[in-house]
Every structure is written in structure tokens, then in C-alpha cells.
């Protein structure tokens, strides 16, 4: 596709490609797949409408107004519309890029700006700082204040999101990053060497999941290399419109992972996986095309990887349970990985998969969206939970920490009986010690 560098009313840095907006022929196939359009019924909150807004800015029919900014951030970036679009328009990515325009046109006030810069530019890029920052939260849990606060509803005094965030915090264990050996050797017949990309949310909130991921990989015959110096993948930055920091992080990760002598780069976080796979677009022009293509060809979600190499099933221990599977948007829509988790589920002895309706409909977590738009998020979540409840399955399986936080909180609040687990926890359970 040729690139038309028509900037119009965008600032030149990180403007959406005009051609990408022009590609939309407005057929409306995306409309029934968009959760925010389902909520509002408002064209501007639909993929087709959002792309039209971007096009209007590029064609100077419209400034980058507050409404354009709001729609860019109200987009879940769930990419369901990308899956639905026969023309290959990527409305989510166009909106992601529009978010980076927001700082130029609608800068945040001082406190907001300082907080945002601290989190995105200081805390997330530095694993040590990130882990330290979670200390108060761990302390807070350890001291049982959590129980007290929950009971006394002290947190209701804060904004909605504080309340929800506190409610969502899982039991925190010490971060995994420093505990995980940098090399875990293959068990049994060796099949290869993989790099493991340990995500920030995984190390902080779901260390027990990633522990299972590397254990399963090693049991499946792979040496697992986990570079300590790995940085945040950049997904939160892309989501918040800080493409510059995302690029710096991506450059470091790319260099580090390309230097590791591994056949595949595997992750158990769908958000990280999709960010890594999109380094190709993010780093365009900064890194040789062939290096980017080589990197891209190595990145795999762990489910995708295991389905591709073939699961060794001979020693698996039966897990007698019924499960239903929620597809993380960043797995099925952003990465096109939808069949593979189901293949793995069908290979675990004893597991009965009960498909829910709308399994690939967003759960409403979507990075910080669920905290920013807590009411809308609840509506999106309710739709999902209704479909979960209808299956009557014992377990709700997913494959992304953002979804897991939201769903675990959701089933708890709704009093549903389902336990929420990561696919790798289930596979870990079936894998002998």
C-alpha cells in the first residue's frame, strides 16, 4: 500500500496514515462487533465512525477536537472490528495512534500530567521501581487492612476507580522476575530453546501463572531462557498514547531478545504478545525491515506455540472438570489466535469444554479502560458474565491477565460459582511435577 503522508490537522509526529483511513469503505460490517457502539448506539463510537473522524481531521474538515480525543480513548482497542473488516481496516490501531495526538492538542493539567509521566516514563520502564511501587499494596494486603477497608467501605470515599482497583487486586505474592532462573533446562527429549517474555502484570499479580508457563514449556522439551533485563513491552504506553516511550522500550526488548539464541519468543500475556508482534509497525524506519520481520516471526503466544509444536500428552494427569473459554481480545482479534487454546483444552484429559456465546466479545477490562469507564465496563462485563453463567461450567478459562483480573472480580461481585484461571494454570495442573 502506498503511503499518503496527508497530515491535515494532525501534528506530524505519530499521525495516522491517511491511506489507512481511506481504506474504509463504510460497509458497516464492524458495527455489530463493537462493544462501545453496542453501548451507545452512536456512530462516532463505532469503528466506522471513528475512522471517519480520523479521516475528517486528515482532510481538515475537523480539528483534533475533544470529541475526537474522547472517542480515541473510549475505543476499547479490542480489535474485534479488525477481525470483522473484510477491507483490512484497523480502526483500533488508528485510534491508538490518535491517542498520541491527544497530548499535543489537549495536554493534561499539572497533577494528571505528572502522575502520567511518572507511571509511564519512570515506573513502568524500570522493573525495580515497578516492583517497589507494589510494596504498599502488598503491605496493605498483608496487614489485613484490605479486609477492614472492604468491610467498612472506606474506599467508597475515593473515586470509583480506586474502589474497583482495590477490589480487583488479587492476593499478591512477591514478584516472580527475580526468582525465575534465567535458564530452565528442558525435561525429557529436548525439542528446542525458547525465550520467555515475562510481562509486568504477570510478574506482579500472577507469578503463579507464569511459573506454570515456564514449567510446562520445560516439560514439553524446551529450554526456557528468561532474560532478566526485559522491559515492559510498551502496551500500556501505546494504550495511553505515549508512543515515544513505547518505542524506547521496544528497541531495548528487540535488541535483547534478538541477541538471545532462541527459536521462538513465547509469552503467556496476550497484551504483551500483541504489542511484541506489532513492534514491526512501531519501529518502522528505526530498525532494518528484515530484523523486524525476523523478530515478528519468532513471537508466539504460549497457546499458539504449543499448538504449533504439538503438545506431548502422554504423561498428562487428568483434570476432571468442565470449562468455558473467554477469548482475550488481544489474543483472538489482535493475534488471530482462537483455535489454538481450544486445541490445548481438548488435549487435557478430563476437561470438558462448554462454548459460551460471544466468546470473543470483550470483557470490558481493556488496559485502563475498565477503570476509566467503570460504568460502561460493568455493562460490557455483565454481558460477558451472562454468557459465562449460561454454560454452567465449573471453570472460566482465559489467557490474559487483564481479562483475568476483570473476570475474577466480576464473578466474585456477581456471586457466580466459576473460578477464573489462566489456560496455563490448567495445563500446569495436568503437567506432572
Amino acid at each position, binding site marked *: 500500500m502506498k503511503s499518503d503522508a496527508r497530515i491535515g490537522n494532525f501534528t506530524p509526529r505519530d499521525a495516522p496514515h491517511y491511506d489507512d483511513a481511506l481504506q474504509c*469503505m*463504510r*460497509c*458497516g*460490517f464492524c458495527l*455489530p462487533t463493537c462493544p462501545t457502539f453496542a453501548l451507545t448506539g452512536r456512530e*462516532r463510537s463505532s469503528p466506522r465512525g471513528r475512522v471517519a*473522524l480520523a479521516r475528517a481531521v486528515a482532510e481538515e474538515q475537523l480539528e483534533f477536537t475533544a470529541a475526537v480525543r474522547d472517542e480515541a480513548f473510549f475505543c476499547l482497542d479490542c480489535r474485534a472490528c479488525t477481525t470483522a473488516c*473484510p477491507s483490512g481496516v484497523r480502526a483500533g490501531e488508528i485510534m491508538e495512534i490518535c491517542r498520541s495526538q491527544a497530548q499535543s492538542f489537549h495536554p493534561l493539567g499539572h497533577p494528571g500530567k505528572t502522575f502520567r509521566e511518572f507511571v509511564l516514563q519512570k515506573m513502568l520502564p524500570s522493573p525495580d521501581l515497578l516492583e517497589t511501587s507494589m510494596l504498599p499494596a502488598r503491605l496493605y494486603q498483608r496487614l489485613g487492612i484490605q479486609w477492614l477497608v472492604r468491610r467498612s467501605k472506606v474506599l467508597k470515599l475515593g473515586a470509583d476507580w480506586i474502589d474497583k482497583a482495590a477490589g480487583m487486586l488479587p492476593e499478591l505474592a512477591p514478584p516472580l522476575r527475580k526468582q525465575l532462573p534465567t535458564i530452565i533446562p528442558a525435561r525429557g527429549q529436548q525439542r528446542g530453546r525458547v525465550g520467555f517474555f515475562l510481562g509486568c502484570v504477570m510478574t506482579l499479580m500472577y507469578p503463579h501463572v507464569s511459573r506454570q508457563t515456564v514449567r510446562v514449556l520445560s516439560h514439553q522439551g524446551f529450554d526456557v531462557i528468561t532474560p532478566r533485563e526485559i522491559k515492559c513491552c510498551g502496551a500500556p504506553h501505546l494504550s495511553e498514547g505515549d508512543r515515544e516511550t513505547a518505542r524506547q522500550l521496544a528497541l531495548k526488548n528487540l535488541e535483547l531478545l534478538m541477541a538471545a539464541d532462541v527459536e521462538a519468543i513465547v509469552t503467556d500475556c496476550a497484551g504483551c504478545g500483541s504489542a511484541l508482534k506489532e513492534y514491526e509497525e512501531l519501529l518502522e524506519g528505526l530498525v532494518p525491515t528484515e530484523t523486524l520481520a525476523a523478530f515478528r516471526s519468532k513471537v508466539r503466544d504460549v497457546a499458539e506455540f504449543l499448538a504449533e509444536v504439538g503438545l506431548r500428552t502422554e504423561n498428562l494427569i487428568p483434570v476432571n472438570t468442565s470449562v468455558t473459554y473467554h477469548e482475550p481480545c488481544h489474543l483472538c482479534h489482535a493475534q488471530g489466535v482462537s483455535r489454538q487454546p481450544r486445541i490445548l483444552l481438548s488435549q487435557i484429559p478430563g476437561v470438558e469444554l462448554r462454548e459460551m456465546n460471544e466468546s470473543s466479545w470483550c470483557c470490558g477490562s481493556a488496559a485502563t479502560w475498565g477503570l476509566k469507564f467503570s460504568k460502561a465496563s460493568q455493562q460490557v462485563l455483565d454481558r460477558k458474565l451472562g454468557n459465562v453463567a449460561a454454560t454452567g461450567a465449573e471453570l472460566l478459562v482465559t489467557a490474559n491477565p487483564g481479562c483475568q483480573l476483570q473476570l475474577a472480580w466480576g464473578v466474585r461481585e456477581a456471586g457466580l460459582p466459576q473460578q477464573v484461571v489462566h489456560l496455563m494454570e490448567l495445563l500446569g495442573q495436568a503437567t506432572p511435577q
Partner: protein
Amino acid sequence: MISPPVVSRLQQIVGKDNMLYEREDLLVLGYDSTPGIHLPPDVVVYPTTTEAVVALLQVARENGLPVTPRGSGTGLSGGSVAARGGMVMCLNRMKRILEIDEENLTATVEPGVVTLDLFNAADEKGLFYPPDPGSQKISTLGGNVMEDAGGLRGLKYGVTRDYVMALQCVLSDGDLLRTGGKNVKDVAGYAFKDLLVGSEGTLGIITEITVKLIPPPQAKRTFLAYFNDMRSAGAAVSRIIAAKIIPATMEIMDRATINCVEDYVKIGLPRQMAGLLLIEVDGHPAMVAEDAESVRRILEAVKAAEIHVARDADEAASLAAARRTALSALARVSPTTLLEDATVPRSRLAETFGEIERLTEKYRLTVGTFGHAGDGNLHPTVLCDERDADEMSRAHAFYDELYAQVLAWGGTVSGEHGIGMAKKGYLARQIGAGGVAVMQRIKNAFDPAGRLNPGKIFADATEQDDSHEE
């Protein structure tokens, strides 16, 4: 521009949440799926009751506001774009299925009901609503009725018109007109219902629709036939019809379309083939078996390169779904997708393909052709770039010449998309000045002030060109 007092009156009628007035909202409600047309309205309202539609039309009358009805904006002739500004009336929020009458085999719905939702609701009761436009997942029944939408099953089951039994419609001065009913036979005066179907929102605003449902076919068989050239695919269609076999579906795609669709669906369609036919026969199991066999013999006689039978219902559904994406998938290739709706008597199909090929070469264009071959309804689609003036003028010349031939063969300039803004120039060429004059008299009888969807169907003497380049 609309004055603030009028705005507040509109808001009183529909409520704050059902009115849009911000620039950004107006901008994104100024298009449908027709390329090159973008005309933002002055205000957008979402009535939720027939009474609100009546009241809105009264305000429009008192203030001389043009009114353009709209559903999901998936139309392909500019029908739901406000050509003269004013009010766009979105009927999407009137989306209740009011009744499925299992004794009379009818469904009564509000205009905002999505086509596929009606199909599913009927299906749950063991009934069948056949019209299935490509956009059925989002298109609305109101839009389907206004444009007389077709679909993939048109060959055997007909189009929207064949299923509409009754309509409730608000006329331009706010009067309510009910026409038709649940009776199979009804000749009490003029058939307004048939006039309203396909009237493109120029005679009244539909607020309630009763459609006929039928028992679903008991059996179905789907196959794909591949061809080394489009003419033999066309010949196959003509011969199947001449053999007095009426498949439910007979869809065609050329090489360009096959490749674009395969890029999207990735189900293994053969990229090197010049064309394919998607054929579905349905009905009583014994008849399906017999028809399938006859069709197969004809395909072999016309030297189809390959015949593939769908293994099961899932595969059959995925093939139909793949075909539904054809137009949007073609849009992958170029920034602008100019789609047409040429329809010819079915005996002329092979010649029409020949003509499309000839003109494609003559005007040096990239064209993908697909469509409802069994209906003689083709969508030759020029893949171009609206920023290239020379290419655009060649594209228009291509269509001009193609339509001249189509009309000479007794075809029509619009099989299922409507005239709207896109094809006003062709109407008189097809039905003659006398025909247009009678239509205008009917329009004047219904809407003397010309408030309902102005700027559609009829070319204005002062209009040089109605297509607004974006």
C-alpha cells in the same frame, strides 16, 4: 442551520439522549456505503415511537426542514444521506420485534430491527425469513424495505418486496397511513404497500412492517464450481435456468474477487481460477438430490474446471459468509471502490461478462465482478483512487457504456441498491421521460413540499452533478 428554538422542540419530542447536534456526530452521519458522497445533516434524531415520528414530521413541516430516514447506513446509492441538509431521522432505536404470528405465518417488526435478528427470531420458531442482503448482520428492515433489498437467496425466494405484507407509514404532513395486512389476497384499492417498497424514503417514513414467513427448506446442498473463464460460468448459469432448475442461490465471483475474499477468509479458495459459482439447491430431500445431480451434469457439460461439494452445513455457511464479504474485501485493493448494480435478463449473462471484459481493457481499469448470477444481477466494481481524476473519469465512462448496453438488452440500472443520489442520471434512460414524469406526479401527491428525502431518484434540471467529492 437550524435555529435553537427548533432544536429544543426536537429535543422535547425525542429526549436529550435521542438527538445529536454536535459537529462530530453530524460528520459521521453524513455518509452511507456509497463512495464519494459525504453531506453532513444539520441535526440527527432517533425517535423511539410512531408518535414521535409524527411529531417530528410536523416540526419539519412548520419549519421547512428536509427529512432523510436512515437505518444503519449500509446503503449503496446514497439513499440515507441528507442531500439537502436538514434532519436525519435514524430509526435504529425502534428495534422491537412486535410479534411472530405462528398461525398466520407473519412477523411484525419496527423498522430498526436488524435483518439477521428477524431471521434468527423466525428460525427459533421453525420459520424462515429468506431475504438476506450481504449486510444482513447490521442492515435494518426499514432500510431493506425502502431499497427493496435483495440478497443471496433472491433467485428462488425473491427479494424484500415479495415478503412485505403490511406497512405503517407516516406521510410528510404527519398523517398515518396503514396499508396491507395479514391477508394473502387484498385488492381494496391501490396497492400503496407495493409503491412504498423501494420508494427510498421519498414517500413516507415506515414505522411498522409486517412480513410473510415461510416454512424452511428441509434439505440443502451447496457446491462450488470453478471455471477457467467467466463466459463459461455465465453460460452455466443460463443453462441451469433454461433446464428449469431454480437453485436457491447462484452466486458468481471473478478472479479478482476470489483473491480478495481469500485474503480475508483464508478458506482455501483457488486463486488461479478465473471464476467460481456458489450454487445452493434446497427443498424436499428427493428434489434436492435430483436437482443437484442435474446441476452437476450441466456443470460438467460446460466444462467447469472443478466441482466441490460442501461437506456439511458449517462449510456451506462459511462459503455463503465468504461470498457476503466480496464487496468489502475488494476494497482492500484500492482506496476507492465504485460498485454498480447492473442487471440483465439471465440469457444475456455470458455476453455481459464479455462486455465487462472488453470495457475493462478499453478504459484501462481494475475491475472485480461478483454478484447474484442467477438473478442476472451483477456488481462490476471498479477499484480505483478518488484522488486520481483521470482514473475516475475513465471509471464513469466505463459505467456509461456498460449501462447503455445493459439497457439495450432490456436490463436495469439498479437490481437492488436503488437510484438514490448515485444513479439519478440513468433513470430517464431506463424508463423514459414519460415514466419519470408519472413518478414525479406520484411523489407530488404524497409529498407536495418535497420534504421527504429530497435530492434522490429524480435528477434536478439545475443539477450538473450530484456526487460530492469528499
